[in-house]
């Protein structure tokens, strides 16, 4: 919808949620365009949430064919093989999402996201990548930052019963409701690359062990040339060795990244549906906050372990 006022149809449809974030935020949502790369279970939940919220458009990128493994946590894929055979995950999910809200334009984009140029990214306001390799994360994040248009970037990954969210909103201004008054806040976010360069020893004690564990696994996948998530328990000895090397380089105690945690993450390539709902819900709300500029967003990593 390009008009300045919400249409009567929108006001009626979005009635219950306008009461939460106001008509102005709803207007901004209807003009926002979201790009999503990698449609796993968590992303399926995320897409459902932002489609119901009434964003302008959602573009899905995931050319992988539908397999039984994908059915495990992705509720958007119909269980009947004749409905999904021969089609990509993005195509199948696109159809399901359209049913949730016909007012949102849901489309599929083919190809590799990290090779697309900045003119492609210019079309979007929010970019979310899931189960992405270290290199792709850095590249796509950079492309978002290169443009003069401010694009919010999120990376999410759920393995076993754990979830990680990273947010880069660049220069973000928002309003926050505190008791009876509204205050304005301005935040400056680092890029993913900048964030992970912070020496581990310099980080506050309360930083979750998951942060470090995920960095180890991320590095492991890069060195071994693995696709993200293509790991198993058999990799544990190599990963432990890598952890020790990284810890030594960072003067960081190994016990801060427990063996058991790394083992869970390596063997947990599949997602756990309740965790998908939880992370998808949280990420959905973060995206809505970023688009509406209402409410304090995540700063800048979020971890969950069921």
């Amino acid at each position, binding site marked *: 919808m390009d008009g300045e006022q919400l249409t009567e149809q929108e006001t009626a449809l979005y009635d*219950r949620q*306008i009461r*939460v974030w106001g008509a102005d935020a709803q207007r901004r949502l209807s003009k926002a365009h979201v790009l999503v790369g990698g449609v796993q279970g968590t992303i399926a939940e995320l897409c459902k949430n932002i489609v119901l919220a009434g964003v302008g458009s959602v573009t899905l990128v995931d050319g992988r064919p539908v397999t039984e493994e994908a059915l495990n946590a992705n509720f958007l894929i119909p269980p009947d093989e004749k409905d999904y055979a021969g089609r990509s995950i993005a195509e199948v999910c696109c159809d399901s999402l359209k049913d949730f809200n016909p007012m949102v334009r849901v489309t599929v984009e083919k190809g590799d996201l990290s090779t697309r140029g900045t003119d492609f990214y210019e079309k979007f306001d929010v970019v979310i990548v899931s189960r992405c390799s270290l290199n792709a994360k850095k590249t796509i994040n950079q492309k978002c930052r290169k443009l003069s248009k401010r694009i919010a970037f999120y990376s999410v990954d759920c393995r076993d019963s754990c979830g990680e969210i990273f947010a880069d909103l660049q220069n973000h201004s928002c309003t926050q409701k505190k008791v009876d008054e509204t205050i304005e806040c301005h935040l400056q976010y680092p890029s993913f690359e900048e964030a992970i360069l912070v020496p581990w020893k310099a980080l506050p004690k309360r930083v979750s062990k998951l942060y470090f564990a995920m960095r180890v696994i991320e590095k492991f996948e890069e060195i071994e040339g693995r696709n993200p998530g293509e790991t198993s328990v058999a990799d544990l000895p190599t990963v432990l060795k890598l952890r020790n090397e990284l810890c030594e380089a960072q003067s960081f105690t190994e016990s801060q990244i427990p063996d058991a945690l790394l083992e869970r993450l390596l063997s947990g390539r599949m997602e756990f549906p*309740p*965790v998908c709902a939880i992370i998808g*819900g*949280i990420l959905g*709300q973060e995206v809505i906050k970023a688009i509406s500029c209402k409410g*304090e967003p*995540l700063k800048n990593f979020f971890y969950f372990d069921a």
Partner: protein
Amino acid sequence: RFGTVTENVFDDNFWENLNVVINALDNVNARLYVDQRCLYFQKPLLESGTLGPKCNTQVVIPHLTENYGASRDPPEKQAPMCTVHSFPHNIDHCLTWARSEFEGLLEKAPAEVNAFLSSPDEYISAMRNAGDAQARDTLERVLECLETERCKTFEDCVTWARLKFEDYFANRVKQLTYTFPEDVSTSTGAPFWSAPKRFPHPLQFSSSDPSHLHFIMAASILRAETFGIPIPDWSTNPKKLAEVVDKVVVPEFQPKKDAKIVTDDKATSLSSSSVDDAAVIDELISKLKHCRKTLPPDFRMKPIQFEKDDDTNYHMDFIAALANMRARNYSIPEVDKLKAKFIAGRIIPAIATSTALATGLVCLELYKVLDGSHKREDYRNTFANLALPLFSMAEPVPPKVFKHHDMSWTVWDRWVLKGNPTLRELLQWLEDKGLNAYSVSCGSSLLYNSMFPRHKERMDKKVADLAREVAKVEIPPYRRHVDVVVACEDDEGNDIDIPLISVYFR
């Protein structure tokens, strides 16, 4: 619908066959009912709820945790009457007032008029019998509709609207500030108009102010509706409406020296009694009787019921206008019609994200419940607010332990008495534990109470028989016991909350 009314559908068999109960309810009463059922049938309950971006999950495990009803939220605070009526300080107060005026002017007054006209003699004697300040106020309102402020044409309605504007937003404020000037002190010497009270200023009506005109439009249209007067096309034409309203003669206002204005926070009524209420009522009644003679015999008014969702009926327009003009008096920020509807309509906001979050969290607890071997410390209750963002997780609280002599129990426990005992034997069994039972009930029926001499006849009857005969309990063929609630005192006369007692008769 869940409640005592549907216990024929959701019967004992239904509950006994469940392994776990998961709530997805929309009100506290239903939740409390389900909690009671789960308590009785000893079933785990996974409770959750959302309110906009906030969500809450709670795990209830028999014997391990406290039940849902063990802790209650404090009741919602309602603004005191004098705040709403004379000293508002936020838009909620203004909207509450607006809602109340809407009802009074457009629903209650016409309804009272019709009650009087339909059965005048009954109505009059009821008012005389009541004889109080409220009856006096009601009669005054009826007389206003039928005589002093009666409307026959749409122009009359515009006049009424203009005079109401003057009364609400100019005269009442002038009276208030006359009685309590800006610099006046209370009896303790503190300034009367200190926070949170806001000092009001009267509004000067102007037909070129669109919000003033909008008030007139909504008010006239609704007033016309109550009198069954057709609404002309020009009523929604600002220029023409302004012309008509400018012709209304507005009398000068003189504040009264002895006006009674309620300032007590705890006051529940605004009608102030006076000695001559009965005399005034008599006078009003004779005026009304005279009035009735001048009206056509089938004359009735049309009470209007507030309908918030119809955008074309002017209800929300009128309420928003009332609230905003009042807000303007008190320098409170005004709201648009949509926001006014949300606040006045009291509808629960809902979004998909917090719902998904709550669902995911409940599912995580469900796995633990079904697994069956978890300690209390393994479960998690969560409170989250996605807007802040805030995530808070905690272990569930264990149930409260009651103690008496060497016994201890929680709300989950049952005491068991076998051997098909009589009432006397049941009471003796409790006395042996140092408990003096004075009342025994089954379901909602009283089986025994020490106050009633007739109940002594029941002492040697079997408890199970009493349940069947007195409480009319239907015992399924597979059931071997009946459950009774016994009220007890200890030797010092203190009440002790004891568990439900399962009396086995087979």
